[in-house]
């Protein structure tokens, strides 16, 4: 990863006495695709708006390329934003929309024309110059909003839930489009979403936020496979989160049965939370399993079956391509590598997090 481009230092922000961001620190590296992920009200959009200059933090500094830009007006910042609801200029043609920023910078006409053609080609909407925004579909409008932003050659593109208003198929197409755009432009993308799948598909780096705090940051694989706390585990995909006891290194007591695991350093006989992803729970013959239970519910999900298995007083969520009918006795096995151990929340902040789950 490149050098640090944007640094947020001790950012705090509150509205009407309600704390939205609390002492937030974040480093965003050059040429990366960073996603701020979290439920609504977690402070992700506020963070983006502070970077864009639309909000001023109550405390803290925003450093861009070595310069303090905390009080700099949005029109003076070297970054551009793609807004949630397209925000195209409806009384201007597509051409005029895209040319807006360039005209303000007094670029020559021929340069503007080339840029418009280049940008429309980049977002696969060649020949749309004379159309009006109203005549475009939601997906097309959002592409124009992206084109309008990137012709200004920003160092950073901020995207505030740009796919939120699109239907599922369009959203998936746009996810690949955005990834491709990012590769072609070679600039930094900061993307805000509440959709974990979107975040996992596109990002180099995910920042999971809740209640104004960063819960965890890391690569999509790290966030998914090694969640640091119950909130992250629960927010990123389905999971079985079980209160357990760490007997000693590499051995954990889950619901009265000892399971081998690979985590160390939690101490002996310490309470912990265990995360097991539903696709990591293997259903085998009752005699072969570490524990055994009964299938209580079955739903067909397309790619796989979703099953609830009652075992040792806990309802296990299981994803499997192999079907087990309701009422079947099954054994449960989990590969030691797939048992993720997390510290039980101790501080008040973390306590607040688990309450929201």
């Amino acid at each position, binding site marked *: 990863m490149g050098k640090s481009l944007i640094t947020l230092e001790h950012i705090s922000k509150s509205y009407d006495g309600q704390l939205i961001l609390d002492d937030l620190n974040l480093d965003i590296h050059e040429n990366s695709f960073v996603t701020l992920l979290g439920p609504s009200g977690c402070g992700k959009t506020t963070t983006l708006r502070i970077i864009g*200059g639309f909000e001023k933090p109550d405390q803290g500094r925003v450093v861009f390329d070595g310069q303090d830009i905390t009080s700099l007006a*949005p029109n003076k910042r070297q970054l551009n934003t793609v807004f949630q609801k397209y925000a195209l*200029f409806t009384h201007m043609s597509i051409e005029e929309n895209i040319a807006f920023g360039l005209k303000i910078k007094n670029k020559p006409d021929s340069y503007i024309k080339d840029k418009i053609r280049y940008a429309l080609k980049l977002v696969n909407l060649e020949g749309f110059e004379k159309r009006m925004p109203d005549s475009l579909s939601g997906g097309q409008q959002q592409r124009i909003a992206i084109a*309008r932003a990137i012709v200004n050659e920003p160092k950073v593109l901020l995207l505030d839930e740009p796919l939120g208003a699109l239907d599922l198929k369009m959203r998936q197409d746009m996810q690949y489009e955005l990834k491709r755009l990012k590769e072609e432009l070679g600039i930094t993308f900061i993307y805000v979403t509440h959709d974990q799948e979107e975040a996992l598909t596109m990002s180099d780096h995910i920042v999971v936020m809740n209640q104004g705090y960063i819960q965890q940051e890391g690569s999509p694989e790290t966030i998914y496979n090694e969640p640091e706390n119950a909130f992250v585990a629960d927010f990123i995909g389905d999971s079985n989160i079980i209160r357990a006891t760490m007997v000693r290194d590499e051995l954990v007591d889950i619901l009265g049965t000892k399971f081998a695991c690979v985590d160390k350093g939690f101490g002996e006989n310490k309470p912990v939370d265990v995360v097991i992803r539903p696709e990591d729970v293997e259903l085998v013959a009752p005699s072969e399993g570490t524990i055994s239970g009964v299938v209580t519910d079955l739903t067909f999900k397309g790619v796989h079956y979703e099953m609830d298995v009652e075992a040792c007083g806990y309802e296990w969520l299981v994803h499997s391509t192999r079907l087990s009918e309701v009422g079947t006795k099954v054994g449960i096995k989990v590969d030691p590598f797939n048992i993720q151990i997390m510290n039980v929340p101790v501080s008040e902040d973390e306590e607040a997090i688990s309450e929201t789950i």
Partner: protein
Amino acid sequence: MRKVFEKIYLGIILIFMYAPIVTLIILSFNSSKSRAKWGGFTLKWYTRLFSDQAVASALVNTLSIAVLATIFSTIIGTITCIAMIGLNSKLRSVIMGITNIPMINADIVTGISLMLLFRFLHIGSGFTTILLAHITFNIPFVMLSVMPRVKSLNFYVYEAALDLGATPLYAFRKTMLPDIMPGVVSGALMAFTMSLDDFIITYFTKGSGFETLSTLIYNEVKRGIQPEIYALSAIIFVVVLSLLMIIYRSPNNKTKEK
């Protein structure tokens, strides 16, 4: 059967509403001075009206006050609406309520209170006081027309313009203004109409020796009614009617109908 009754009923209502005006317009073309007898078609009252010096100066007064009052009230009302974007919705509806009261308030009360205020402040009566009064009562009409437009503004569009490097003023001109313009235009037309046809407030704030068309007609009527006044009233009616039709057909009302 029912349809026929509906039509008859509608016809009667329309006759009740418009018979007086129609009578007035017909009489303005009557060559006989009598109100009871038809003496043949003529335009002489209209020609006589236009050669009347007092009417001409009253017309100039009326139009200049209407134009100036429209300009000032439109600017003030629009700016107020935009400033209210930043307020929370509770405070905004309170302020809208307060600004709406003068519209419902009896004109005579508004007229007398403005007169007292101008006396108290020693503002000389005549053109200035009428203009100030008209600006005052026009502002709520402008706000009523502009506010729905301001409320439906997509604020992100303004931010998008800032984001692309526009200064706040340029962003306002390019994004917000075009969107609220239909509301501003229809508010201005409404203000102009109100100003043209106001009598009571003008009467109380004008002082002596200064006449607008409506006060002139009132004075003439006191001295015994002349057919020129029918002609003048007919013209005022037609002008106000056409303005109202323009307001009704303006884009602001079309989107409201949707």
